[in-house]
């Protein structure tokens, strides 16, 4: 932001060399183009974020206003609270369950759908369809499929005489179940991006490999994946951020239960804020989550981008 400031005394000395005013002309034009974004971000993202940080140092009253300054107590409370540590752990596990599996699945589908076969357009449409189903709608459907007594999954298991699973009710399974449904919801989007990435790969690369008699998996490892790495990098970053912020399916499928096993941080924030009306601790959690995502993204850029192969 410092770029918009210019000192008038230097302005006088701009007869020959372009001075700060002249040099900052570009910056000023740029700011004009950026203005709508800057204003909107300031009002609807940065201001609320600062307010969140501010509130994280307070206990709030029943109207949601800061009432008692407690310094870092909210943070201390969180780090001591087994419930919050559990949320943090669940969130981390959830990210681990959904991101790699989701991307592998989408990659598999994208590779399949990238083959030039008759009727492939139909399959592509089907594979991308989950993007058009809202989280609210798909959660309702999955809720039904996970149903302990009448759900499809348990009926299927019963068909083969396997023991029944309490999908959303058993703390061992609940997070996995939510992860499965989340992977399904995200498949459409990841698939579309990966498929696009595959189609951008230069056909000649494959042809020369084929002349060398390279097999499918050799080509996959040596050509496809390296060439796809920028796309993979992009989708991993986006998936990571999205997984950290999962909310809708938790609200509908488990409400954070059973035994807090699916109480992801964003859901925990929602509950602190909407049900318990404790903005102090809710805000502290939000700040914590923000830092987590920030660190994850930075790490991802640090270590992930090294492996990315740019053309």
């Amino acid at each position, binding site marked *: 932001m410092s770029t918009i400031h210019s000192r008038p005394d230097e302005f006088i000395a701009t007869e020959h060399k372009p001075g700060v005013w002249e040099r900052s002309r570009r910056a000023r034009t740029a700011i004009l183009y950026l203005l709508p974004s800057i204003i909107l971000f300031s009002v609807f993202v940065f201001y609320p974020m600062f307010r*969140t940080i501010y509130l994280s140092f307070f206990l709030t009253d029943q109207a949601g206003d800061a009432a008692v300054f407690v310094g870092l107590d909210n943070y201390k409370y969180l780090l001591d609270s087994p419930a919050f540590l559990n949320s943090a752990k669940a969130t981390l596990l959830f990210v681990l369950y959904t991101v790699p599996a989701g991307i592998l699945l989408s990659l598999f589908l994208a590779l399949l759908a990238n083959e030039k076969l008759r009727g492939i357009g139909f399959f592509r449409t089907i*594979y991308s369809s989950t993007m058009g189903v809202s989280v609210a709608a798909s959660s309702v459907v999955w809720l039904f499929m996970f149903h302990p007594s009448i759900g499809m999954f348990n*009926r299927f298991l019963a068909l083969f005489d396997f023991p029944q699973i309490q999908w959303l009710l058993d703390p061992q399974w609940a997070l996995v179940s939510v992860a499965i449904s989340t992977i399904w919801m995200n498949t459409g989007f990841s698939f579309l991006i990966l498929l696009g990435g595959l189609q951008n790969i230069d056909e000649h690369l494959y042809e020369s490999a084929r002349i060398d008699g390279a097999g499918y998996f050799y080509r996959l490892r040596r050509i496809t994946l390296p060439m796809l790495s920028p796309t993979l990098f992009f989708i991993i970053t986006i998936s990571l951020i999205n997984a950290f912020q999962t909310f809708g399916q938790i609200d509908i499928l488990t409400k954070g239960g059973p035994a807090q096993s699916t109480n992801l941080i964003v859901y925990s924030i929602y509950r602190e804020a909407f049900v318990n009306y404790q903005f102090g601790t809710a805000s502290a959690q939000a700040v914590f989550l923000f830092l987590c995502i920030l660190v994850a993204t930075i790490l991802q850029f640090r270590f992930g981008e090294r492996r990315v192969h740019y053309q």
Partner: protein
Amino acid sequence: MTMSVPKKITFYTMLTVSAVILFFPIVYAFMISFMTGPEILQGKFFPESFHLDNYIRVFDRLPLLNYLLNSFIVSAGVMLGQLVVCSLAAYAFVFIPFRGSNFVFFLFISTMMIPWEATMIPNFFIIQNLNWLNTYQGLTLPFFALAFGTFLLRQHFKTIPKELHEASQVAGLGPFRFFLKVVLPVSKTSLVTLGAYGFLTTWNMYLWPLLVTTNNSVRTVQIGLKQLQSQEVATDWGVVMAGVIVVIIPTLLLLFLGQKQLQKGLTQGALK
């Protein structure tokens, strides 16, 4: 490119199996939407008969057409807003190099990491103070600036040859004219992509539209979906599923029609 027959069979088998598994939940919802209460509780897959009672009840219960129209207006509004705001910002990042550009860009990107649920209540106060409850702008304006969109368009604008920029300057085309006449037309696929992305995500929002509306005048379909489910009193699942189908059909259609464009454009964000 030709493929041996066994290989073809392998591929088609895998394609079909994947498609069946992936599409199953949607088909399942479709089936349930035709069932009666007892049929659902028995856990059947095929309804005994395809009766439309559930659909009739959904439209009877809720001003669903009104909701659909609102959803359409809100989604289209956010879509247009995002296109304008994000393309302006992305243009500045690519074609107007200035000091601190990277810093501002990083600031933009960092907004992607702030969980929306965490800032929702302060945002609600803002909307209320602006007197924007029950208005379209309360539903749309907070989403106009989008880091993801700016990022996506920036990646695409970067692929526009520098020569084009120089040539336009020689021809005396001002920056804004260049933006309007050259940059936007050649970025059509990215714009379509961002548009579809914005439209779909807005269409799917639930909590925010509920929070900033207190009556049905500008409410969207996702709220309608919630209204079909009961808490203490038993839920009529057939009606809920009929609602689900009605809600997802417009987005699925949009997706099917815009598939090609979408896929082309989405990858632009992925490439440096």
